[in-house]
């Protein structure tokens, strides 16, 4: 079995293992996860004694300190982490069985049409090297041989299983609901946009660049990522899907593209894996690259602290503290709408954008989280 023409090949036992992990994750998040709140409320009631609790709410940090000592949170977190680590172990088995073929397919592509090598980025940002994001061993950048694309292959399979575990079945194993959601946003709010040049910043393996390219097949589509193995795999993956996209390795904070050289610049769940400073630079860079009338869209995880009570803020930052996603709190607590305005974008839009489904193509942004319906948070604006 393959996820797409150039994916590593899975045997039935791999599929059984990975489906087990996806189902286990789903059970942990949706069935057992909410019990942490019940447990915290029980603790708060016990701590308050017979008197009603004081009006002042605890902070996220105070709740974290309490919960790290609660047996249920310990067991639950340990299981979530074990499921994540086993997922990478099982994914690595698949990739390592097939890595020689994958690397050689990439070299064939290179021989047929040499890649734009991109720029030698001036060192890797701290948020890439400090920790393995999502606990994927080696992170986005480690190479084990010349022209290695292993990290991209791991991420492609792991990301698809992770999304399935979150119950996000739309887009199946292509894991491309973010690109589909972004296109739905563009069609609804910018129907006049006919981009000649498109840039996807922090594209990882390009799984969400492909739907954008397909929405605008006449445009010249570029995609960049900081991880060399990621862009190599992205190139192979896109070639297998027949998508003509130019990938190269660049830092989205400071690309080498010329001023005003794109009509559409996007990022998709990039910001929460960077830093608050990098987020501001990426917004500024996306504006610098736009031609007059061009549009930038930044799509993020749908976690907004202004729409969460303090317990939910604590709970939704689990991935930052225990799964190495370094800027969840930074993004969730930043007013991205205001940041886009301060950066210089005009007619800024923001809100929760539903993932398009065959049965429901709701295209309007929702100002509040949408219960029981998958969505991504979007901020977009124009350069005037």
């Amino acid at each position, binding site marked *: 079995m393959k996820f797409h023409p150039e994916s590593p090949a899975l045997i039935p036992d791999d599929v059984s293992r990975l489906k087990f992990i996806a189902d286990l994750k789903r059970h942990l998040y949706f069935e057992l996860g909410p019990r942490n709140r019940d447990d915290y409320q029980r603790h708060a009631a016990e701590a308050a004694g017979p008197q009603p609790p004081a009006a002042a709410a605890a902070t996220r940090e105070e709740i974290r300190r309490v919960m790290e000592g609660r047996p249920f949170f*310990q067991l639950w977190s340990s299981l979530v982490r074990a*499921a994540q*680590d086993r997922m990478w172990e099982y994914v*690595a088995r698949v990739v390592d069985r097939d890595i020689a073929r994958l690397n050689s397919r990439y070299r064939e592509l290179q021989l047929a049409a040499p890649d734009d090598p991109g720029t030698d980025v001036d060192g890797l940002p701290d948020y890439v090297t400090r920790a393995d994001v999502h*606990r994927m*061993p080696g992170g986005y950048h480690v190479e084990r041989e010349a022209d290695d694309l292993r990290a991209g292959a791991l991420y492609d399979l792991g990301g698809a299983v992770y999304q399935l575990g979150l119950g996000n079945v739309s887009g199946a194993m292509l894991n491309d609901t973010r690109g589909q959601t972004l296109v739905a946003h563009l069609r609804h709010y910018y129907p006049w946009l006919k981009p000649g040049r498109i840039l996807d910043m922090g594209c990882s393996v390009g799984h969400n660049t492909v739907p954008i390219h397909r929405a605008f097949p006449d445009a010249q589509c570029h995609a960049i990522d900081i991880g060399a193995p990621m862009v190599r795999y992205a190139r192979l993956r896109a070639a297998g899907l027949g998508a003509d996209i130019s990938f190269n390795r660049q830092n989205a904070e400071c690309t080498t593209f010329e001023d005003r050289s794109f009509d559409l610049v996007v990022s998709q769940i990039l910001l929460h894996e960077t830093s608050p400073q990098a987020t501001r630079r990426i917004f500024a860079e996306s504006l610098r690259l736009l031609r007059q009338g061009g549009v930038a869209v930044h799509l993020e995880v749908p976690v907004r602290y202004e729409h969460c009570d303090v317990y939910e803020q604590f709970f939704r930052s689990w991935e930052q503290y225990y*799964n190495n996603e370094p800027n969840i709190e930074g993004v969730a607590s930043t007013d991205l709408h205001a940041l886009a305005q301060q950066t210089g974008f005009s007619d800024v839009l923001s809100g929760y954008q539903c993932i398009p489904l065959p049965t429901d193509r709701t295209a309007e942004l929702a100002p509040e989280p949408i219960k029981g319906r998958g969505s991504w948070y979007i901020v977009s604006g124009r350069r005037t």
Partner: protein
Amino acid sequence: MSGPVQPLGQPFGQPFCDDPHIDQLLSMIVALGAELSVQSEQLDTLRRLLIDRGILDAASIADYAPSAEAQAERERVRRNLIASLLSSLNTATETPAQR
């Protein structure tokens, strides 16, 4: 291929539970569940194929005795299963992903 990739970030062996052995046991349970799921699906595939094609009935499966070669293969698979289940006993610097 060069050596294993050194994981970075939140320590891989850092326990959540007051007793770190519980973390290791939970990791084993996850692996056990995954392998059980694999075996259940394989068995289901085989049973359905065999019965649908009229090759075997349930009694023949119950009476099966493995050959020496089959026995050796079973032992290899069993040892791999044990290694996988117990991999959470590795130290913090020796994660399953490094094997």
